[in-house]
Every structure is written in structure tokens, then in C-alpha cells.
């Protein structure tokens, strides 16, 4: 009988435990509709997930770049205005004392250019370019960095295939990377 009581107590304990776990759901908020999600779901991944329909050529990108980008980032991505990012060049400089980290020399994925231009550029009018215009600007930036030919047209399929020069340049967090970061004796 006592054993049975213990069993009941144990069973009740687990039941109460799961009831508590159930209570963790508060049913707050409103279900997100597919339409709501579509409006905000702008992120793009290196595997191409999230790239929207549309396409753009180097030639179209050259025009848009001249109008929307060159004032800060410089003509053809060279000689940017003071304080703004240089987008072109720097190849072979990453392991030197004066690394030049540009889209061409440093960025590991071409999809990230699309994602960033789409969400944050142009600086004075973010969220103003169409998908075609973003594809065009990306095509142009890849062209001026000698990554795609002048006749290239970028769309979701083409962009995710682009291999960036520094694609293999990133490694996981290597810390602790010096003995001087880990205490061996008399540490407390």
C-alpha cells in the first residue's frame, strides 16, 4: 500500500511537472500571417535562400551606381569620400600591415552584398531600390572587382553560384590563442 502511495506520489509529481511545463505557454500575441511574414522576410543566405525573383545586368548596375552610390563610395568604387567604405581592390593585402578590406578582397559571399544593399543602401534612401536594381548594383560591384565578366546578369540562380576571392578567409573563433589569456596558477 505504501509502495502504491509512493508510486501515485511520483506519478502525480511528474504529472504536475508536465502541467507546469504546459503552463509555460501563455498564448500571448497574434499568429503571424504568411502575408505579414512576406513583407518583412528580407534576409538572404549564402545558399541563396531568401533571394527574390528579378535580375540585373552590370550595365544597368553601372548607371544605378553612378546615381545612387558613387557620391560616397567613389567612381567605379575607387577613391571613396572620406570616411566611406572602399568597395573595390585590396586583393592580396589582407596579410600585410595595411590590409584593404573591400567587397572584392574581404567579403566571403556575394549573397551578402545583395542582402546588405537591399536592407541598408543607398545610405540616404534605404528601402528604395527594386529587386532588379539591387541585382544590378551587385552585378556591377562584382564586375569592378573582376569577379564576373562585363556581360554578366545576376539573378537568384547566378548570384548564389558566385565564388568570392576570400570565401575561404574565415575561421572559427580561435581564442584562447595565447597562453597569456588562460590562468594556470594562483588565479582566484
Amino acid at each position, binding site marked *: 500500500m505504501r509502495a502504491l502511495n509512493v508510486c501515485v506520489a511520483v506519478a502525480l509529481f511528474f504529472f504536475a511537472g508536465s502541467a507546469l511545463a504546459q503552463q509555460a505557454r501563455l498564448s500571448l500575441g497574434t499568429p503571424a500571417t504568411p502575408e505579414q511574414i512576406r513583407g518583412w522576410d528580407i534576409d538572404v*543566405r549564402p*545558399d541563396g535562400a531568401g533571394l527574390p525573383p528579378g535580375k540585373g545586368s552590370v550595365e544597368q548596375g553601372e548607371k544605378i551606381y553612378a546615381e545612387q552610390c558613387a557620391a560616397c563610395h567613389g567612381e567605379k568604387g575607387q577613391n571613396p569620400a572620406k570616411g566611406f567604405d572602399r568597395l573595390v581592390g585590396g586583393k592580396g593585402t589582407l596579410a600585410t600591415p595595411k590590409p584593404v*578590406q573591400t567587397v572584392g578582397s574581404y567579403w566571403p559571399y556575394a549573397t551578402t552584398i545583395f*542582402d546588405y544593399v537591399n536592407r541598408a543602401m543607398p545610405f540616404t534612401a534605404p528601402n528604395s531600390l527594386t529587386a532588379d536594381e539591387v541585382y544590378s548594383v551587385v552585378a556591377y560591384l562584382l564586375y569592378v572587382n573582376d569577379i564576373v565578366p562585363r556581360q554578366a546578369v545576376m539573378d537568384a540562380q547566378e548570384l548564389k553560384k558566385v565564388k568570392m576571392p576570400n570565401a575561404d578567409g574565415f575561421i572559427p573563433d580561435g581564442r*584562447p*590563442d595565447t597562453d*597569456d*589569456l588562460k590562468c594556470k596558477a594562483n*588565479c582566484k
Partner: protein
Amino acid sequence: MSVSRRRILASGAALAIGGMSSVKSGEALAGAVPPDVPEWMREQGGPILSPAYGLPSKFEKDVVRRIREPRATDTEAFSVTPLQNLHGIITPNGLVFERHHAGVPEIAPDQHRLLIHGLVDRPLVLTMDDLLRFPAVTRIHFLECSGNSSTEWRKSGYHSVQRTHGLMSCCEWTGVPLSTILGEVGLKPDAKWILAEGADAAAMTRSVPIEKALDDALIVYAQNGEMLRPEQGYPVRLFLPGFEGNMSVKWLRRLKIGDRPWHSREETARYTNLLANGKAYQFAFEMDVKSVVTFPNADRSFKAPGSYEISGIAWSGRGHVTRVDVSVDGGATWRRASLQEPVLDKCLTRFRLPFSWQGQPLEIQSRAYDDKGWMQPTRSSLIAARGTNPRYHFNAIQGWKVAADGVLTNAST
């Protein structure tokens, strides 16, 4: 009753009758210091609600955030906290450092929405009203930009601790554990990463590992007892204790659950640490154990020989500070500083050490240790490991030189 006491009473009566705001008084009233009685004890002070939201004394007008150098824009920009003027561990809300990628959006809280979707069972839209109904927690944590003191990779030339280390603040944060909210939406089995996206004009975006999200991540709406300041993400931000500040995405509008990281611009082109060999650390999240002496400092240092208290702040993004040693001879000998309670995880700890200055030149340093076995390295060992190209995660021992006249300068210049 003494003569001077009677005089004071007499002029006090004259003030009350005449309603004058100031009184030309006799000799005994001329000064503010003993034995004289100051003028502000002879009339009523300012009224309440002046202003309704209180401000610091006008005599503290120089205690402000500053820029380090002018930048091309004032929206893709940052300001630094005046660590040299702060006491204890809490940064007042108006002095918390700022780092924006596209300025500070002005968001009415009833217009703000947090969308949670991706690899979840029940995608949700939360309003601020919804968020305020969740069970809340309050925690004290530091927030450090991973670029803090990055000028010291190469000799900075900055002598002010505000400029070298001021991308660091510490507040009491209130909000909802992210794990609670993820319980509401229900994670799919392959949920490994979470994209956090801001509602600013940069739609600032970072990928957060699910382990952190389920550990101590918070969805924060209040700091130091009041709603977030606009520049801190009003009405709601992500807060990842101990991780590089950039990941605590402000003006949080969206969380998308996925099976891999997104490699956004802010985790590839930026916030990656380029090493001497040309490779770069990516997804290096924790802020290392670190400390810095904040008194003496470039604004206020030793004046005359005598008694002082050396003081500073220490912290670790992995746990809590267990020990801080202080050297006044450039690291040749060390003394253990006392740690001011409370000593909390991923939080500033104030350290103090009594010191008697005899007027000799010094190089003051501090070195912190944490409960996870990490310690603060020397600048030379850190540079030997990584070179001088990194722009982030500099946590080496900081030296301050004090000359015989008390002038303080950065020892690494």
C-alpha cells in the same frame, strides 16, 4: 547667542520680509566656507519639478558622451561613455555609449511589432502590450562594443579613458527571457540559429546561436528602471549578456529561426577579426575578461603627494571577475585590489586600491581574472598572437603613465 548668529537671524528675517533673492550681507556672510554660512542657506532653493524629468547639477555639465573623432556622418557613428566621471558600476541612461549604423529611429511603441517566424510551430506577432504581459526578469550586465579600445591594437595616442575604453556601459536591464518567447512559438528540431533584425534604416542584422538564445538572452524594454532610451533601442531590443554589443540588436523588429547562420554584412565584412596571416576569426562572440583604471585619469590625476585611491572597472563576458591586480611600476610588481560587491556575472565590478603617492613617476596597470580561468593578457602577447590588424576584441592590460607633476598619459603611446 553669538554676534554672528544674531546677524544671520536678522538678515534671514529681512530676506523673508523683503522676498529678495539675494542679500548684501556683512562680513561674516561673504564666503561659503567655514566659518561663513553660504548664501544658499539664506533663501529658498529652486522649486520642485524644475524640470519635471531631473537633470544633473549644472556643475557636472562636462560629464557627457563624446565622439572620439569626427566621422563622415553623424548617424553611422558612435559616442563614448565618460568612464572617468563615473562611480560604482551603473552607467546613467544619458551616458550610455551609442553606436548606430543608420541613426536613431523614432518609434511610437504602439506602432512597433516584433515578428517571430522561421523554424517554429506558431509564428507570432507581438505588440509592446503583449511583451509587457510576459513574466519579466531584471539583470545587471555590461554592454561593450567589440570595437572598444580597438585603437590600442595600434598605438592610439588617446590619453582619455573615455576615448580608449568608453564603448562600455553597464545597466540594469528588464525584459523577457528570450527562451520564454521561443517557448511560445515552439522551436522545430533543426532550429540552430536566430536572425535578429532591427527596425532602423540599416535593418541591423546578426545571427545568434540557439544555445545563447536559450541560455541568458533577453528581450529588453527597460534600462535602469525606465523604458529604454531611444538611442538604446526604444521600445525593445535584444540583449545578449557578455556577447559583443553589436549582437544586442536595437529596435528589434524580427526574429527568424533557422538552421544555419546568415553571414550578414555585420558578421562578415564587420565584426570579424583579421589576423596577421590574413585569415579572420568569425563568430567570436564573448567579450574577454578585461579591466581599466579610471582614477587617476587624464582629466583628474594626482596633484600633491599623499593619500589617494586607485580605482577602476573590471568585467568578463564569460562569467564574473574573481581578482584584479594593480601595478604602479609597469607590471614589475602587483598588489591585489579589493572588489566592491556586488560582483556579478557579465557585469562591471568596481575595484579599489589605497595608494600613497610620493610624487614619483608611475606606470599604473590593472589585470583582471575571471571564474572561468581566463585572464587579461599583456598587449605584446595579444599582438604576438593576432598582429595589429584586428579591429575588435582588444582586451589587453592598459597602462597609464603618471609623471612627477601628476600628468597622466597613455603608456602605449
